[in-house]
């Protein structure tokens, strides 16, 4: 089971144009700034950017991968700090802030950060996850 100060990750991922298009389709968010270079520039952007919600979803996927079996999100908050362009390499990591025992479950508070390789944070966030004590022990 997690202990305070446990480090999760890091995991390195590459956001491709294909993934952005797939996410547009899967989420129904067809805002042109995510696939049309010209329109993206018209809105003052350097070109197409990944959906903030794609970044948030990737960080959630990362947290799940790092979690004990049976862990579920109770609360998940992120701040979007930076845009992500296609073909940028990102590093996701986390740190366990606190773990509390309540009846037959643990509540764990985790800080997560996704950053551009050698660069700024893209998102920073917090998750509170519940883990059933039975699976946490096994």
């Amino acid at each position: 089971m997690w202990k305070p100060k446990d480090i999760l990750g890091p995991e390195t991922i590459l956001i491709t144009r294909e993934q952005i298009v797939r996410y547009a389709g899967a989420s129904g968010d067809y805002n042109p700034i995510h696939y049309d270079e010209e329109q993206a520039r018209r809105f003052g952007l350097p070109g197409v950017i990944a959906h903030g919600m794609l970044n948030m979803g990737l960080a959630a996927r990362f947290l799940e991968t790092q979690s004990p079996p049976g862990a579920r999100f109770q609360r998940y908050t992120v701040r979007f700090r930076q845009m992500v362009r296609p073909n940028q390499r990102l590093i996701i990591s986390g740190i366990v802030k606190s773990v509390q025992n309540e009846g037959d479950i643990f509540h764990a508070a985790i800080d997560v950060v996704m950053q551009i390789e050698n660069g700024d944070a893209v998102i920073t966030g917090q998750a509170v996850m519940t883990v059933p004590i039975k699976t946490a022990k096994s």
Partner: protein
Amino acid sequence: MFDYDPTRIGERSAPRSHEIEKGAIRRFAEALGEKNSIYFDEKEARAAGFPGLPAPPTFPFTLPPHPIPGVRLPQAGIIHGEQEFIYGRPICAGDIITVSAWLDNVKVRQGHLGSMTILTIMRDGLHQNGDIAFQSRSIVIVTEEVQRDVEA
């Protein structure tokens, strides 16, 4: 100025029901590079205690509400600043989730892009028996440039 009616802050949009489809969950999970079989295989989902394929944590954002009363948002160019979800009973394939949204707060700030309007938009989703599936808080920013675009 940003186009909204201040007397209608807190007024909920008409409820909008969404049928949660297996295919939509699988496609969404796939788009995020999920490998966890609970999102793809119903047997695995049931073994993990879900009645059907569960929705990944950020899936609720793909369930659009009806328009918020008294608010006109631009089609493109709004910046998503912050997002929070609080989870209730999990959303699974086969569920019907009824979503509504409301404007919670509006602030105007001067930034390097000129004036910015910062909106707090709340959203919630309920199961058919009234159980809360999720609550969502979004902070979105509309810059002066985009506002001009809407007005044009």
